[in-house]
């Protein structure tokens, strides 16, 4: 039973890489699902779990790119399954794997602990207070809105540095750090800046920009990393010129 509006028009083959604790290498299970034009990858996976293999484990919750839990790789690309139509994944078999650069717990479920631990020190709150509605003549009240970041981990999965260097803070944490610097709310941004001013912090990025490309929520982590560098560079220059002036 699909969750599409229109009658299923075709069958798609889904190949899921499944790793279990203590089982060593992952095995690949193949399933066929009926798909309509609107069927998403998540629809297909839920169909598989409900009617074909109840042992398939995966994370999902909101079904509309808001909770960020259904992150995975489809044909090698980082996606949120709930907003990825099968029609956008070519016409052949679809290879589904869990996110990269995170420990696989089982099947498509990865350990999100590292991501959340890297976000904690940024001090970035969930709600920002800076949204202004357009079309107003005078500056109106600012509104609260959730930060764009869904904490989905797609950016970390896509980052080439995160893959080969496990100590790198990663794009998600750095983007959150930049938000804290942009909107300090009375706190001193120097703390967060000092935290990212590290060889494993914002300087470890090598500008592949994949994080920004895969982000489903418009966070632009790469831009944030460069903004952090610009800010740190500016402060350093200020410091030097100030010291220079003092000596004279």
């Amino acid at each position: 039973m699909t969750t599409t509006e229109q009658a299923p028009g075709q069958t798609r083959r889904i190949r899921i890489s499944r790793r279990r604790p203590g089982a060593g290498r992952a095995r690949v299970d193949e399933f066929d699902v009926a798909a309509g034009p609107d069927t998403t990858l998540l629809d297909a996976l839920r169909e598989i779990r409900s009617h074909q293999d109840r042992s398939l484990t995966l994370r999902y919750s909101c079904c509309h790119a808001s909770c960020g839990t259904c992150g995975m790789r489809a044909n090698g690309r980082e996606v949120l399954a709930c907003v990825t139509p099968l029609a956008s994944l070519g016409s052949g078999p679809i290879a589904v794997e869990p996110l990269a650069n995170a420990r696989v717990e089982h099947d498509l479920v990865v350990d999100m602990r590292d991501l959340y631990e890297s976000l904690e020190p940024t001090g970035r709150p969930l709600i920002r207070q800076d949204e202004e509605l357009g079309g107003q003549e005078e500056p109106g009240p600012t509104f609260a809105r959730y930060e764009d970041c869904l904490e989905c981990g797609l950016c970390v999965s896509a980052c080439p540095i995160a893959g080969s260097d496990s100590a790198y803070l990663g794009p998600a944490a750095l983007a959150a750090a930049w938000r804290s610097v942009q909107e300090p709310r009375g706190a001193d941004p120097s703390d967060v800046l000092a935290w990212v001013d590290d060889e494993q912090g914002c300087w470890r990025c090598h500008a592949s920009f994949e994080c920004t490309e895969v982000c489903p929520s418009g966070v632009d982590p790469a831009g944030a990393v460069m903004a952090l560098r610009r800010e740190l560079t500016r402060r350093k220059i200020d410091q030097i010129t100030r010291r220079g002036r003092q000596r004279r």
Partner: protein
Amino acid sequence: MSATARTGHPARRPLQSTLRGAAGWARGRHLGSVAFLTNRVTGLLLVAYLYLHLGVLYLLTRGSGSWASVLHLFKNHYVLSLESLLILFILVHGLNGIRLALVGSGIGVRHQKAWFTAAMSASAVVYVVVVLAMFGVI
């Protein structure tokens, strides 16, 4: 203050072999990742060339005779082609490097793809001119 010091425990991302991790360098599909991988590959090749170059220079210590025979080798067309590739790698790595230096300081980040296209186009043009010059066409 490192990531370790701040969070109090080391990052627990899976420690995989550098080789497997390096496979992640080639996964990116977009222009920024192409630039990233190109820079890594040309960088490694240039480092390899550097050692080769040092080896060749060593021959200088062996007297003018061996030096002359090496120079003769370099006039070989096949070797010239390789040398032209070297020029290409230097162009690509250098011009992309300028892009990285600027973007990495927060300058022109929004245009990073355009900068890469411009850098590669410039490399291509200069490469063609160099090759033509090397083979005596111009």
